[in-house]
Every structure is written in C-alpha cells, then in structure tokens.
C-alpha cells in the first residue's frame, strides 16, 4: 500500500484537476473501492476542484485515507480563500429545475458520497469536506 495517508494538491489549472483525480483514483483503488466508486470519486474530485478553479481562482484538494478499526474510507477536502458562496441554499439546489444545467454540481457530489459538509462565509472562502466509506460489497 503506497501513497495512502494524505495528499494535498494545489489547484490553479485544469492540469491540477487531472492530477488530483489521478491521485484520488489511485488512493481509492488501494483502499479497495470498485471501479464505479473509483470513477465516482474521480468525478467528485473534478467537481470540487473545478469549483475552486472557476470561482476562487486557486485553493487545494486534500485527500486522506481513513483507516478505522471496522472500516476504511476516503476523505476529500476542497478548500479555498475565494469570495465564498453568496447564496448557499441556492448552490445546494439541484440545477435541474433551471436552465438544464445537469451533471453533478454540489448536490450531485452530496448524493455520490456518504458524508458532506460545507462551510462558506462571504469573503472568507469555502471549505467542502466529503467522505466515502467502503461498503462490504464494494470491494471487488
């Protein structure tokens, strides 16, 4: 098992997003997640990293392997010092009702992961932390 523990990837370009995805995919593979969860984790990292890249300019993704007595998981934190989210309730609404902006977005990320917390204060940046736990059947 290499590369577990944690990795921090600074995000300021599209290439950084790919790097973060790659590391996240490797870590999730090592933790025992199946192919679908690996892809969902990569998608989650994309979404969070793209938000940093598009709205805050720069920030970082922190990936941490969680190994507890009875379970293992992956924790993904996305942190920036950007302007923060002005209307958090709106950001957590499904884009579905609006123009047709489909895809994951924050609500999609929340649905793919097991735990989700978001903190944002205008002018002080945003921090999203999600965790995916490995289910028994997932380990293939």
């Amino acid at each position: 098992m290499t590369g577990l523990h944690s990795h921090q990837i600074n995000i300021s370009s599209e290439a950084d997003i790919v790097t973060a995805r790659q590391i996240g995919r490797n870590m999730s593979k090592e933790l025992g997640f199946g192919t679908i969860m690996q892809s969902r984790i990569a998608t989650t990292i994309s979404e969070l990293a793209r938000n940093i890249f598009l709205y805050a300019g720069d920030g970082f993704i922190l990936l941490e392997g969680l190994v507890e007595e009875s379970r293992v998981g992956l924790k993904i934190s996305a942190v920036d010092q950007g302007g923060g989210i002005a209307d958090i309730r709106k950001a957590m609404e499904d884009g579905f009702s609006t123009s047709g902006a489909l895809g994951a977005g924050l609500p999609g990320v929340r649905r793919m992961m097991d735990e989700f917390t978001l903190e944002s204060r205008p002018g002080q940046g945003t921090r999203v932390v999600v965790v995916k736990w490995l289910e028994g059947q997932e380990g293939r």
Partner: protein
Amino acid sequence: MGQDSELMYTRILRGYLEGKSEDQLYLAQQFGKWLLSKNISPEEVIDMHGRLLEALGDVPLYVRDSFQILTEVMIEYGNAFRSFDSWRSRHQQLQAEIAVASAMQQTLLPERLPQCPGMDIGMVSIAANEMSGDFYHFGYEEEGQFYVAIADITGKGIPAAMCMSMLRYAMDSLGEMKLPPAHMLRHLNSVVERNIDPCMFVTMQYGRYDTVNHVFRYATAGHEPGFLYRVREDRFYDLDGRGAALGIAAGSEYQEYVLQLEPGDFLVLLTDGVTERKIDRSYIQREELISYLQEEMHVPAQELVNRLYQRLLLLSQFEQQDDYTMIVLRRDQVSKGGE
C-alpha cells in the same frame, strides 16, 4: 448491484448468445424495467455488463479498457438520474400539496346544479391541471329565479386558483344584494380592480334566469361569448355583449341584454378553454363547435356537455391546454313552467 441481478443478466446474455432469439431480447427489455424499478443507475449496468462479459469468453484488452471510458461517460448519466430522483420526490410533494389545495378549491364551487321545473341543466368543468382558474356559480333567489356566473381568470394553475378564492368571497358578500347583472359586474370589477395583481384580470358572463317567464338577462365582461340555440329556426346565435374584463380599469360600465327562451331553446355558456383547443396545429373554429353541438344536442343537457367534452378531448389527442367549462341551460320542449 445485487447478486441475483448479475445471475439473471448472465443467463439472459448466455441465452441470447446461444440462440439469438427474440425471447431473450424481450427478457432483456423486461430486465431493464426491473433494474430501473430497483433504482440501479446506468453506470452500474455498464459496469456489470463489462464484468460479466469476462465470464463468457476472452475479452480483448482494449475492449475491457474501453469500458472504463464508457463508465466514466455514464457516471454523468447516473448523476442526472439521481438528480431526477430527488426532484421526483420534490415534485410528488408539490403534487400532494396541489391535491389538498384543489380539494379546498372544490369546496368553493357549488355542489349541485339548480333543480328547476321546466328546465334541463348540464355542466362540465375540468381543469387543465390540478387547479382551476375557471369559475362558475349558481345562486337561488325568490320567485323562481336563479343566477349563473361563469368566469375565467387570466392564466391557469395556482395563481388563478388563489385569485378564484378571493373572487368567490367577493361574490358571496355581493350576492346577497341581488343586483341586476350589469350592476353586479360593475361592483365585482371594482373589487377585482382593487385587490388583484394589476396584470391579472377576470372575464365573466353573469346572468339571471327567470324560470317562470323563461327570460334570461345577462351582462358580459370581456368573456368568450356563449350561444343561444333557437329551435324554431334550428340556428345558433352568439351570446355576445360588450364590456371590459374585470380588473382592467376602474369604473367600467356593463350593458344588460334580455332574451326570451321558447320551449326547446337552450343557452350554452362556456370559457375559452372550449374553443381554444388545438387540433393538429390549428384551433377549433366556432362553426365546428356549432356542428358538434348540433350533432349531440338531442340528448339531456348533462349528457350533451359530457359528450362534447369527450369528443373535443379525442380530437385534440388528450391534450387539454386550458381549463374547460361548459354550462347548458335548456327550456324543456314541453314546458311545465307557466307562461
């Protein structure tokens, strides 16, 4: 994905590869329905397919790898799928709310049609969606008179329904004054004008029917004209009348019209949902409506309005764009009323 799904799918795949029969394709379709009902996301189906393929033969490496790309594409379909699912529960909640609100609205409409000797009355009122912006009302007055109102609030759905509740309260308080039709509309206009959003208005036809002398007095506020059918001439006349819709301008004035009905004559009151029905790409013409009325008019009034609604629904292939209301008031052929 459960083990039973995988077994089932393997069996279907094997069966198809052996016999290439339509049975297996039919099974595959039914299986798709079953997976959907279990909320299995599309990327899971792809992943399962890719894995089970390995059990069936030697899969070239590049085919195996290609599934990685297909899965990645399908993750986004899965996200859309899950988002639909959460929206579905929001939508179901809305529909439950609307069902309750719609029941509240029903209590504002008259439960029964007037039962008058010498008269045959039929009515159908069906909302385009759950809540109606069409409104109708019957009221009884002494000396064999009743009044009838038919109205259409601009737009439809929830805002029109909220507006309808207020209209009902206003009519109720004014109803006791027993005003002649033109005065009634004048008063209602001032209520609507004061209390309702400036971009909403209400069209209405309001009449009082004297069941002893079979005289109908009515006034119109920008409403789609109904019809008067004259048995003697076998002809339909427009029930027109001038007057601005309620809520357009303060101080609108209305005119009263008087009709004398002979035995067998009947009145048709309606909202524009009856005529503004799209058939293929054009709207139904009033002449066409008259020809349908003519074909169906030899049955009791309630049967007449029912048949007409069914017929128009069929013609427009079950698309109902607007709230639909039709009232028929017919003087009996052999009049039992005094004259």
